[in-house]
């Protein structure tokens, strides 16, 4: 006789059926089951029932079973289908057997496993296909957004000043503290590195040139653009994405209102206004950071620093930085809105698209910056 406990930790609980016990007796071709045949005792039951191979007539007495759940009934039905005769079925269990044994049971199909070496090719192919589609999407969307923006600018009555000013406030004014702090710190980082590298050559005074030029030409605009991409580009995707999941975008279309015009254009215009202003602010903060470095590491007073500044940088340095800002803004806004409109159905796709939007817009910002560096170098600006 095998006495099987479903759970070894037989805690003294009142919950009688939670720790079911199954008793299996007999051997060869006749077994008797008593107690509970439930999912918890199923493994034990299967292990205990060793049917002899040549047994002509195999019987299983289940009169002693108090409780049977669907999994237990499934086991008994399977045994019956294999030719085991079930005896002593209680009337109260008959309906359960009828239900489970009548079910049209088919195994869950296996998902076809593709060999590893083929996976690689499939992945490469899928990746290439996706990249091509992605590039086409971006180009199409850039074109559409540009045409709608131009259209709105030509017909100023289509402008939505309320929406634009809200986005300017959210993407610009709210971002001032963090962007100012970042620009200030970046200037200090560059300043420290400059002093450390230039001091052996006795050229530590050139740190001022280094900080001023790099902040105005590159760092100010890059830091601002990356910050805005992470902060506002993602917000655009999430806002439009949530509208998409709630069918608000479809509601706009049904009302004959073009989502491009009400959702995308105000954001694009707002960001194109905001990013150059933020960049200018970042430039100022970066130069203040430079002044701090000069004071503490080079013992150049702020007044002297101000006198030196016009000698080391000129308008073209400021222009190069500010020129890039609206272009970065355009792409950050476009990518954010594009991914927002791409959200389909569920909330999880909002998260996925937001991640993609941020990654893509930062990538685009850096790629464009590299392109501009080469361009301005060739132009000699």
């Amino acid at each position, binding site marked *: 006789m095998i006495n099987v406990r479903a759970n070894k930790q037989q805690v003294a*609980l*009142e*919950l009688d*059926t*939670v720790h079911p016990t199954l008793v299996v007796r007999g051997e060869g071709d006749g077994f008797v089951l008593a107690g509970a045949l*439930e*999912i*918890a005792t*199923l*493994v034990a039951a*299967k292990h205990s029932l060793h049917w002899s191979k040549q047994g002509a007539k195999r019987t299983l007495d289940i009169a002693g079973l108090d409780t049977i*759940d*669907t*999994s237990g009934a*499934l086991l008994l039905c399977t045994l019956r289908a294999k030719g085991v005769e079930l005896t002593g079925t209680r009337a*109260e269990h008959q*309906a*359960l057997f009828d*239900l*489970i044994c009548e*079910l*049209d*049971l*088919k*195994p*869950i*199909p*296996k*998902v076809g496993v593709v060999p590893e070496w083929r996976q690689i090719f499939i992945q490469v192919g899928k990746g290439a296909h996706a990249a091509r589609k992605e590039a086409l999407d971006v180009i199409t969307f850039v074109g559409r957004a540009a045409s709608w923006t131009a259209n709105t600018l030509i017909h100023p009555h289509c402008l939505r000043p309320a929406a634009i000013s809200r986005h300017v406030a959210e993407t610009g004014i709210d971002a001032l503290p963090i962007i100012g702090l970042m620009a200030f710190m970046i200037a200090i980082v560059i300043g420290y590195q400059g002093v450390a590298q230039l001091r052996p050559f006795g050229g530590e005074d050139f740190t001022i040139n280094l900080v001023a030029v790099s902040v105005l030409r590159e760092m100010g605009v890059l830091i601002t653009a990356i910050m805005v991409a992470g902060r506002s580009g993602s917000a655009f995707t999430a806002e439009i994405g949530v509208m998409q999941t709630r069918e608000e975008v479809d509601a706009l279309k049904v009302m004959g209102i073009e989502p491009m015009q009400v959702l995308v254009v105000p954001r694009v215009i707002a960001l194109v206004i905001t990013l150059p202003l933020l960049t200018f602010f970042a430039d100022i903060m970066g130069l203040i950071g430079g002044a701090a470095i000069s004071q503490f590491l080079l013992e150049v007073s702020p007044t002297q620093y101000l006198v030196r500044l016009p000698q080391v940088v000129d308008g073209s340095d400021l222009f190069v930085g500010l020129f890039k800002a609206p272009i970065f803004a355009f792409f950050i806004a476009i990518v954010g809105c594009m991914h927002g409109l791409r959200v389909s*159905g*569920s909330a*999880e796709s909002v998260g996925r698209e937001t991640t993609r939007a941020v990654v893509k817009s930062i990538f685009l910002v850096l790629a464009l910056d590299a392109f501009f560096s080469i361009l301005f170098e060739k132009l000699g600006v």
Partner: protein
Amino acid sequence: MTARAKVHAETIVSARGIVNRFGPQVVHDKLNLDIVRGEIIGIAGGSGSGKSVLLKTLVGLHQPDAGEVLLKGKPIASIGAADKSALIGVLFQQGALFSSLTVAQNIMLPMREHTTLPAKEQAQVAAMKLALAGMPADSGIKFPSALSGGMVKRAAFARALALDPKILFLDEPTSDLDPIAASGIDALIRQLNQILGITVVIVTHDLTTLLTVCGRIAVLVDKKVTVDTADQLVKSDHPWIHEFFHGPRADGAMQSRKINHGNG
């Protein structure tokens, strides 16, 4: 109700003096509710009357501000995770299927966590649960996102049944379903209750479900519950309950109740 259930007419879920507050707003005020083993009980009430909060309290997802919930005479908080999962199953309103798992993996998850069943047998049991919930076996390899609303409900049903719970809590099982799918779910609830003897607690607005499936109905009014059979509640002179069972939408449901009871 099954013959078995009538033999032990014992209270399986008992809510004692439940108080739930959200800020100044009191949703439940010293609410008492006893659920008898083997019955199908419906919880009805207007929007914002705290039906879902009551359900969450009953399954232990929400800690009430006062009072306690007893499952088989034990405070719900003292029941261990494995015991609890063998005791109660919950069908959430949106299905709450895990989107990263296939339907079959969803059903097998509680088995994998709480039983020693080998993977092959888990798959067999999962296939049985799918068939029981009225889904084809090949839907087992689908992901929840590929299922229709009715199929999501059925798959969630199959998952709630994974460990053959003694009590099944259903949150709006027929909402967002077409009438055919909804009647299918109603029939499934009745079948599970009659054949497996599962106690079923249904939170629903659906009058047809309330009147044709539920043995007793707990109506949430005035921060408390009024529990009775549909026939008695229909005669109630409480204005809200009267409106609920005599409104224009109640007639059709009453009709189907008569048909249903006539046949069965």
